[in-house]
């Protein structure tokens, strides 16, 4: 009996080792391969555009196959760091626009300045996106797509509350909140506008709307600016709006629960987020979902929307920079960008912009400080903690803003 177990085990190991090393041999044999790291948004959102780009590339470069490997936002940077250290990384990588500066400053990408004019629509690139791909006067990133923030709302709740049309100012929206709350009072815990407590993408919009900012440079040093008069006015306006609008917990973040899930459960009259939120608002409210642009406190203007987005870059470890650039050209071609636009994204060039709610919201936008260590401020949750403390009532707006501002100053000024 024991002999049989040993024999079976040995056989299993031999087979396993054979299988494991077979793949190694196969890998060494493949030459002429371009590796691309895209985020899962492409895999689930527009796989057809990826396939089209691959096809075009392969037509122009027979003998080179394209291997697209999809990454998660949560750990793709750790994987990239490992690849930079040991090799085996991609030839093209999608980076979030807030992630670019740190890696550009460290010299992680190939310089694409000389190739810039060959990229489709490069003379019309969206300023906000293009900036995130520039460092020290050189171009390292090609804008891929962007997204702003809009209000997705339930027309039936609006109707029940007797509100006609979208609010034209923050003040009007705030007045509407009471009627909305009454209209949705049938559901326990109903939020007229469901906003996560620590949704800093939305909260900072108020700061910029009131003329404040997160940080600015002065004499080559970063200075945190959340404790300025304007910023505090913005934060206070946010606090008042949030308290009246949202029943989310002060510590919740905008991913968990996803606002569209709350919407689909009937717990929200409206939600704030990217334009593509309308995809997932649930079968129950399919016919009564619409969007409008979040209004500023100044009547008639849009509140600045956070211009999120992605860039495509070529890691310095790639030995096929020219081929990588060609693939990027195929993937950011006009037809590809128009395809992205059709899926609810903002294309990378002003010449391609349409008139969707999403794109109108991008007319006024704000972006994070272009600092090497900005990513550390984000990952350190400095803004989130500040918001949680303000909304919990643990600190006054001035106190929380002051401490966050000092924190940001020290983090951004690290060598």
């Amino acid at each position: 009996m024991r002999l049989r177990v040993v024999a079976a085990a040995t056989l299993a190991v031999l087979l396993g080792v054979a299988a494991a090393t077979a793949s190694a041999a196969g890998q060494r044999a493949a030459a002429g391969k371009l590796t691309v790291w895209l985020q899962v948004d492409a895999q689930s959102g527009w796989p057809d555009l990826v396939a089209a780009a691959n096809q075009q590339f392969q037509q122009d470069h027979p003998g080179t196959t394209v291997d697209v490997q999809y990454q998660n936002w949560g750990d793709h940077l750790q994987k990239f760091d490992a690849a930079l250290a040991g090799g085996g990384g991609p030839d093209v990588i999608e980076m979030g626009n807030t992630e670019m500066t740190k890696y550009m400053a460290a010299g992680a990408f190939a310089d694409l300045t000389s190739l810039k004019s060959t990229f489709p629509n490069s003379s019309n690139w969206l300023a906000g996106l293009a900036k995130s791909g520039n460092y020290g006067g050189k171009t390292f990133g090609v804008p891929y797509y962007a997204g702003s923030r809009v209000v997705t709302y339930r027309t039936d709740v609006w109707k029940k509350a007797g509100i006609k049309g979208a609010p034209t100012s923050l003040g009007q929206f705030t007045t509407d909140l009471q009627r909305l709350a009454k209209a949705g009072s049938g559901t326990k815990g109903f939020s007229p506008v469901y906003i996560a407590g620590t949704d800093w993408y939305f909260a900072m919009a108020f700061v910029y709307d009131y003329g404040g900012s997160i940080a600015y440079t002065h004499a080559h040093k970063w200075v945190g600016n959340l404790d300025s008069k304007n910023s505090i006015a913005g934060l206070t306006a946010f606090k008042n709006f949030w308290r009246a609008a949202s029943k989310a917990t002060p510590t919740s973040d905008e991913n968990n629960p996803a606002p569209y899930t709350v919407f689909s459960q009937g717990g929200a009259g409206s939600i704030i987020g990217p334009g593509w939120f309308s995809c997932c608002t649930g079968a129950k409210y399919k016919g009564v979902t619409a969007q409008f642009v979040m209004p500023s406190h100044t009547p008639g203007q849009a509140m600045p929307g956070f211009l999120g987005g992605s860039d495509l870059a070529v890691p310095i470890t790639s030995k096929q920079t020219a081929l990588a650039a060609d693939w990027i050209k195929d993937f950011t071609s006009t037809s590809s960008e128009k395809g992205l636009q059709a899926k609810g994204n903002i294309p990378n060039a002003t010449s391609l912009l349409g008139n969707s709610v999403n794109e109108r919201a991008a007319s006024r936008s704000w972006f994070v400080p272009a600092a090497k260590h900005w990513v550390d401020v984000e990952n350190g949750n400095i803004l989130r903690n500040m918001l949680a403390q303000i909304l919990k009532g643990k600190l006054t707006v001035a106190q929380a803003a002051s401490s966050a501002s000092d924190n940001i100053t020290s983090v951004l000024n690290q060598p």
Partner: protein
Amino acid sequence: MAVSAETTRAWSRRRPLSRARVVRASVPYWLLLPVVVVLGAILGYPIYSLVRLSFQHYQLFELIRHKGQYIGLKNFGSVLHDPVFWHTALRTVIFTIANVGLTIGIGMLLALLFVRISTWVRVLLTAGLVLVWAMPPVVAVQIFNWMTNPQNGVLNYALTQAHFGDYFQHDWMGSTLSQLGLVTALIVWGALPFVAITLYAALSQVPNELIEAAEIDGARSLRVFFDVTVPIIRPVLLILTSLSILWDFGVFTQPYLLIGQPHIHPGNYLMGIYLFEEGYVKTDFGRGAAISILMLAMVAVMSVAYVRRMLKVGDVE
């Protein structure tokens, strides 16, 4: 025992080395060789590299150029002067004591329960425990998150229905204590199966006659447990305790995923998360290496008592 006693006497008499004796003496080295080779080949360079990194300024810039700057003990100095390090260390020690205590305590009770129940119940409970054990941490976190969700979590629902109070939309992630409490529940829940099953396996090595003999002598259950059972399962108990200390002190996946990256901040850091945040998220690899070594030192101190016991227990007469 006859053989080993003879061997010992033979060595003490310093008889000339015969071929048989050399072969017999070399047996342990041959037995150990495969493990040593594998560990040495794979971990040798990484461990050396880790130590070297801790003395270097090595951030993203240096990573890309594969070249760091020697700065001596500056990394260690910077970490040891960081109040976050000390607060995190204290918090992690308390966390570890709570987790290990609960895991081993409840695990031991479960193992003892196993001995006393009918076979079908034992099989059912073991099967249930193995299912729990087999749950990937990533999934377990999802489920716990799902169950403690303020919006529609079943925990709030059940507590409210059972009239324990109004838990409608109670935020279980609202305070650090609550967060770490949930993490403890998750970790203990996940660790119990292994501890209970291993301790039960160890208990099965305790000869029944010894226990019955002690009971016939009139000893009460508690006496029987401490005087008869514990000495026999002591090696396994020591191992499980020391392993639990290692794992719970450096735990990373569960708290990181359960609390969630957006809610992690220096106020609720545990050492494993502190290491990851400082070393990897902030891409300061030199500092991360220094923290790794400091963690190693701290764990070594925490488990020295157990390790010394293990070394003594293992002494061959």
